[in-house]
């Protein structure tokens, strides 16, 4: 349990900052962009944790979790960042029901701050608890004693209630003692009553004293968990991200690179030999697989992440300035900053009239969206909004870092079409992609990087043999929030059969109910009417024989190393075969850290674990998003392995044409209603 060794010889934690100076401390007092981003992301997470804690009445667990999250932030950033983050979280806490949640979030930030500071300084448990006692406890004690001395009537009422409760407990103990025939339990009750009486009489001593003991326990637990977490987070992410360098006043085009190497700090990176000449109004496509260095190139052009181009490539990126460089990245939900569409366009460019904003929104096909909430937009709409917000700065150069990779085919087409039209505004565009169908007809403005060839071994099995029904939904209705004014029917009378060794493709647009169907089939959502039957029996909840792999694999893969993750799914000795099946058979892959892997590789580690678990049914939720050609091929082979083991596989996807030679059944969902497009050859 507790680490009893407080000696000075133990390794200091964390490795990225053995002394305070090594933490990225910007010169100015103001927070930088990356600090503000970290502060707000942590505020959002702790707020959501507090909300869930209230919802499922597990407040203490989530309170410690929030403290740990703040502690990790404090271990990586300055105290100022924690203060602002805690303030933001507590401000949102107003909506969770007034003063209680605000106080909880402020307390979590306070003790997270002290715990994280101890981590940052590499202190041991003893000093960490000491700091919490020295800094956190006086604040809490002063606030409590202050409030209790002003609110005399509230204090008296509360103390009366406490005395009554303890009196009730005492009477219960006496009754129990009589029942047992007088074993002396009543003395315990007397002791309890008299100590509580003392505490109530001398409340101004007793309350802070009790809080000191609680602080010690709380600080000990928070430090213990935060140390584990901060170490693993540090291994996963490395040092905190740094801010954009000042890279000159621009203009960013013309940009000229000839056999250039990208620099990180002053060191060259793997990305070298780049030839790229961009002038105004051009549309460049950079084609390469995942991991080829496309993002590195674009971030160097922008001057982000301490990356830079060789001297003299351009007059400077002028990132974010009027007439400078703009950037749209891959994940749609990270490209938009404001909760309202119009505010996002206005962000940082104050002198825009309502007409200017409307004009920009119309140009990106979002006319009339000004007051909509950004959280309700689809991926394609978000990316078009991000491009619109970039246009508000009339950029000379727009960098599109795989901005189409995570979108469905319709959204991808719209965004790509919009990017191509930007030349008409005089903006040069550099668009990176791994999709060959986004190549223009002429090769003039195309740069190819990092091509490679993939070898795969396909299992040989007759995947076309007709199978028995494993999972069946019978007249399935699902109503979200039934009985409340927000009730919404997500599924209507859905009948679907999944057969062993067969592949079912479930397609449908955003919000059609296909994810609800997937979650219901694995028992995560209860059917309002009808049933999900596994081998003919109704399912009442999640079942180990039915597995699901989510798109965002990192949230599902919980262990830090590949081998541990696979063994956490099923008790297997040799993980070699399943790793080979998913194409992750490089030497010593089992000992690799999950967070070193790409998103696609994490998805396949999850599949390797599930493969060794041998479920009867496997459901894959959007497994193709963001995968390049190689990733798609690997996924296809992994699916073939499942089919060869007679698992019934269902894939929820936007792409109806993927692996059509493997598909037995194709169904489509529109507004919660299922239609069978193509019964498989097995029928």
């Amino acid at each position, binding site marked *: 349990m507790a680490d009893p060794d407080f000696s000075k010889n133990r390794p200091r934690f964390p490795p990225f900052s053995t002394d305070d100076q090594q933490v990225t401390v910007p010169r100015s007092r103001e927070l930088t*962009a990356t600090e503000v981003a970290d502060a707000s992301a942590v505020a959002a997470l702790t707020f959501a944790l507090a909300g869930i804690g209230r919802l499922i009445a597990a407040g203490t667990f989530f309170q410690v*979790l929030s403290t740990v*999250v703040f502690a990790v932030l404090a271990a990586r950033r300055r105290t100022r960042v924690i203060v602002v983050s805690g303030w933001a979280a507590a401000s949102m806490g107003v909506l969770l029901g007034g*003063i209680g*949640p605000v106080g909880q979030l402020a307390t979590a930030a306070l003790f997270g701050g002290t715990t994280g500071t101890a981590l940052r300084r590499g202190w041991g448990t003893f000093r960490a608890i000491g700091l919490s006692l020295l800094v956190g406890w006086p604040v809490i004690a002063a606030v409590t004693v202050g409030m209790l001395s002003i609110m005399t009537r509230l204090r008296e009422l509360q103390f009366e209630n406490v005395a009554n*409760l303890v009196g009730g407990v005492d009477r219960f103990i006496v009754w129990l003692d009589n029942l047992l025939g007088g074993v002396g339990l009543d003395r315990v009750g007397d002791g309890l009553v008299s100590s509580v009486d003392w505490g109530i009489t001398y409340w101004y001593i007793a309350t802070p004293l009790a809080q000191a003991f609680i602080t010690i326990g709380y600080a000990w637990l928070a430090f213990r968990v935060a140390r584990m*977490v901060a170490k693993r987070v540090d291994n996963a992410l490395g040092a905190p991200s740094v801010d954009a360098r000042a890279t000159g006043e621009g203009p960013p085009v013309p940009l000229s690179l000839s056999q250039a190497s990208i620099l990180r700090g002053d060191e060259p990176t793997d990305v070298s030999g780049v030839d790229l000449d961009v002038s105004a109004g051009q549309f460049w496509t950079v084609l390469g697989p995942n991991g080829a260095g496309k993002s590195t190139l674009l971030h160097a052009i922008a001057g982000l992440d301490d990356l830079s181009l060789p001297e003299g490539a351009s007059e400077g990126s002028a990132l974010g300035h009027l007439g400078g460089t703009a950037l749209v990245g891959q994940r749609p939900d990270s490209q938009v900053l404001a909760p309202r569409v119009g505010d996002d366009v206005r962000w940082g460019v104050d002198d825009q009239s309502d007409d200017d904003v409307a004009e920009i929104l119309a140009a990106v096909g979002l006319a009339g969206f000004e007051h909509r909430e950004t959280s309700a937009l689809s991926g394609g709409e978000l990316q078009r909004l991000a491009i619109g917000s970039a246009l508000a700065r009339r950029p000379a150069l727009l960098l599109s870092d795989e901005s189409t990779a995570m979108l469905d085919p319709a959204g991808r087409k719209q965004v790509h079409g919009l990017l191509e039209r930007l030349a008409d505004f005089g903006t040069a565009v550099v668009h990176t992609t791994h999709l060959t169908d986004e190549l223009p007809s002429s090769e003039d403005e195309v740069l190819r990087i990092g091509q490679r060839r993939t070898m795969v071994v396909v299992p040989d099995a007759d995947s076309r043999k007709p199978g028995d029904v494993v999972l069946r939904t019978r007249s399935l209705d699902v109503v979200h929030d039934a009985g409340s004014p927000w009730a919404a029917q997500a599924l209507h009378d859905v009948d679907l059969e999944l057969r062993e060794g067969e592949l079912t493709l479930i397609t449908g647009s955003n919000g059609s109910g296909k994810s609800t169907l997937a979650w219901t089939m694995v028992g995560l959502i209860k059917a309002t009417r009808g049933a999900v039957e596994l081998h003919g029996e109704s399912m009442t909840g999640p079942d180990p024989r039915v597995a699901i792999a989510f798109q965002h694999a990192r949230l599902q893969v919980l262990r830090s190393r590949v081998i541990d993750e696979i063994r956490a799914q099923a008790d297997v000795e040799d993980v070699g075969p399943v790793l080979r099946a998913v194409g992750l058979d490089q030497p010593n892959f089992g000992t690799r850290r999950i967070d070193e892997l790409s998103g696609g590789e994490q998805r396949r580690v999850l599949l390797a674990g599930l493969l060794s678990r041998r479920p009867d049914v496997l459901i894959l939720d959007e497994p193709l998003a963001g995968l390049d050609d190689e990733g798609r091929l690997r996924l296809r082979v992994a699916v073939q392995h499942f089919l060869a083991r007679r698992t019934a596989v269902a894939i929820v996807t936007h792409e109806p044409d993927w692996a059509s030679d493997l598909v037995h059944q194709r169904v489509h969902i529109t507004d919660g209603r299922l239609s069978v497009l193509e019964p498989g050859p097995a029928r």
Partner: protein
Amino acid sequence: MNGRMLRYYDSGSPIHRLWAGTKVLWLPAVGTTIAFQISWFAIGLGWFAALVIFLLARLPTGVIPRPPKLLWIAVLASVLLASLGGDGPTFYGLSLDGMASIARFMAFAWMMVFYGLMMGWTTKLDEIASSISRLFRPLRRIGLPVTEMAATLTIAVRAVPLVADELRLVIAARRVRGVQPQQDLTEQGADIAVSLVVSTFRRSADLGNTLAARGGVTDPPQDVHRLAVVDAAAFATAMAIMAVVIVFG
């Protein structure tokens, strides 16, 4: 987040049209005054005002969440214990004073919860955030970094639905795991925290780049809501309630 907490229900009522900042100031002011007196009269007045606001906001009763059974059990147990331990006149051996005291506190606590829920049904999170930023703006003079604070709060509000989805996913992923992990609660907590924090910082690195590509940390678009008659009425009501509570106890 699903469920009936934190869920906006639009009926376009005067309560919905109030400036969010009015509500943010109203609730702690009135709540603290009632807590100061904590008499049946003050709490009764507070509940009366709450019900009037509920009717004014034209909310259907279906918005009210059903408390979990565990809560009822806890309430019953504490009422029973408190009335066993209390003094004064008794009823079947249960102290009426003890029962009244604990009931008085619960009536107050639940009133505050109900006000909090009403805030959620009638106010959007981004309106609360921008109004709080606006309320803090004058504090620039005493050296508070209000620009960074406002930017942080605005981006945080934007990130809440994304983070809530991730939380839902993490919880779901644990439920569908085949083998139940042989770990204690702290290790499980650490696993969950690592997943969430890594994902959060990955996103914030992206958001940081987006912010840099918008010219760095600047004031987000500001709250321009104009105070109207409803806000004046709300402030007047708050004053009246506070005065009555203080004078008549």
